[in-house]
């Protein structure tokens, strides 16, 4: 990702940047099992911003994504993407989705280039024959994430970070105004994380709207303009500075945090609030937790506001 082309391509910037917005009002999603995973959720997101969707495991982050992509029908409420209903937005290729790594079969016989080309399918004709433009956009997307040299690799033969970049390249090739990333930093090294974040920054400058679910609280204030705090419903939503506060995070993570503090011997061994102090200084909690602990939510921290106790 160090080799990143500077321009997004003027067409992409103009067409895809304008008015990318997500509006969720009174959303409720009930699964077939009868479980209401999300209820009464409302938030508005503006174009040209990066928004974090933050909450513990099972708080409904993936459910919100599924609702935005129309995979699950809301039991109540309404979602509008760029002012359009979900189905219409999907058919216009407005939404590009970067899946969680666990959703992919890494043994599937496809090469890196083939995966990125999938991003163009929505733009192709009935027979899905790639045009010169499609090929060009695939090249450009691979170049942008620094994966050009890997285009003929089978996707299983990549590192965790490289895999993520490939799927990000697919989203770029798709040219969606709205990009959804489900836990993009899970199983990714710090260098790739930094590179992804800087790429997201460029896309923001080009007017894209990115919604990112993450456990990686430490870096949220660094690159997210807005935060939606989730726990079965929206606890708080708005600009990072207002929403990403100690008090709010404790509301969202309270029980879970205490649990992990008690159990996490590699953090520190006592359960009192001083944990927070210790970890406040760590900008990237993910670096501390190894891969095996990747599901663990990081403690709420605000690097620029160390808590003094």
């Amino acid at each position, binding site marked *: 990702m160090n080799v990143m082309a500077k321009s997004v391509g003027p067409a992409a910037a103009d067409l895809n940047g304008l008015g990318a917005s997500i509006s969720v009002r009174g959303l409720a999603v009930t699964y077939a099992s009868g479980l209401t995973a999300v209820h009464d959720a409302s938030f508005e997101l503006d174009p040209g911003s990066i928004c974090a969707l933050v909450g513990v495991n099972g708080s409904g982050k993936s459910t919100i994504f599924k609702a935005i*992509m129309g995979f699950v029908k809301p039991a109540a409420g309404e979602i509008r993407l760029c002012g359009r209903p979900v189905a219409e937005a999907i058919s216009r290729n407005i939404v590009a989705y970067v899946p969680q790594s666990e959703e992919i079969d890494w043994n599937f016989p496809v090469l890196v280039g083939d995966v990125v080309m999938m991003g163009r399918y929505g733009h192709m004709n009935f027979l899905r024959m790639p045009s010169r433009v499609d090929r060009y956009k695939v090249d450009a997307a691979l170049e942008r994430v620094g994966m050009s040299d890997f285009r003929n690799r089978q996707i299983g033969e990549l590192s965790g970070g490289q895999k993520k970049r490939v799927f990000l390249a697919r989203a770029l090739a798709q040219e969606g105004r709205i990009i959804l990333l489900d836990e993009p930093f899970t199983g990714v090294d710090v260098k790739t994380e930094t590179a992804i974040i800087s790429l997201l920054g460029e896309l923001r400058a080009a007017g894209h709207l990115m919604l990112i679910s993450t456990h990686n609280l430490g870096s949220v204030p660094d690159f997210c303009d807005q935060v939606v705090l989730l726990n079965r419903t929206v606890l708080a939503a708005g600009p990072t500075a207002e929403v990403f506060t100690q008090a709010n995070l404790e509301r969202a993570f309270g029980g879970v945090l205490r649990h992990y503090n008690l159990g996490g011997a590699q953090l520190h061994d006592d359960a009192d609030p001083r944990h927070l102090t210790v970890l406040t200084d760590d900008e990237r909690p993910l670096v501390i937790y190894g891969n095996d602990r990747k599901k663990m939510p990081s403690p709420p921290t605000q690097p620029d506001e160390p808590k003094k106790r």
Partner: protein
Amino acid sequence: MMSELLVPFSYEYMLKAMWVSALVGGVCAFLSAYLVLKGWSLMGDALAHSVVPGVAGAYILGLPFAVGAFFTGILASVGMAFVRQHSRLREDAVIGLVFTSLFALGLLLASIWPTSVSVQTIVLGNILAISDEDVVQVAIISAVSLALLLLRWKDLMIVFFDEAYARSIGLNTFLLKALFFTLLSACTVAALQTVGACLVIAMVVTPGATAYLLTDRFGRLIVISVALGAGTSFAGAYISYFLDGATGGVIVTLQTLLFLAAFLLAPKHGLLAARRRRMTIAGAAP
């Protein structure tokens, strides 16, 4: 000697058997490219056995066999879905239950009512004695399936690779999967004629599995798989002339031999290549 080898080509029934086998083998191999990727291989087997009562019933009633087969194929799918939803049994148990019950029913039907078709024909297939109407049915099923697959193979690939993404770009994944399973049942029915219910599973698994070892690109996997399926089926029918019958056995044996060859010798994913790589690494290490 030479002329002896050409004898099968001088009989019309042999020519018919060879090209019908090749057509069916090719389409089944096309489907196998998808099946082996999803861990759905046993679905092919289940469907092939489930349609037996439909085929037997159709012969008894004098209907085209495809009609009966299709009816029981749908019945089997709905039955499996129903049992799975309303019990806590796991998927493999449900598949096993439903297809064996239908298969048993088929054998019962075919043995109670004396019909033009014997149990043996359904279970083992008999392409050498295939009737002209059946040839027409098999040819239509295969040709339509092949055409649909050629039109939609990329969409199906995305659905199999990354279903969530497929939906996010507006593909109707439910319809595409329904299309796939409809084609699968139709083609297993066609393959009943050539290799019989017991060996259909090989037709919809082995070529894809072999090709999977030979390439890392899905498009090529399909081409290799179809070539293997059609080639072995054609050759199998041809060889079975000299062995007097047992077409299904010959076809599947050929397919298995090719699989073993790939398993050992495939340039990248074969056993020997893997060993060579290990040796190189061991040799390079100080």
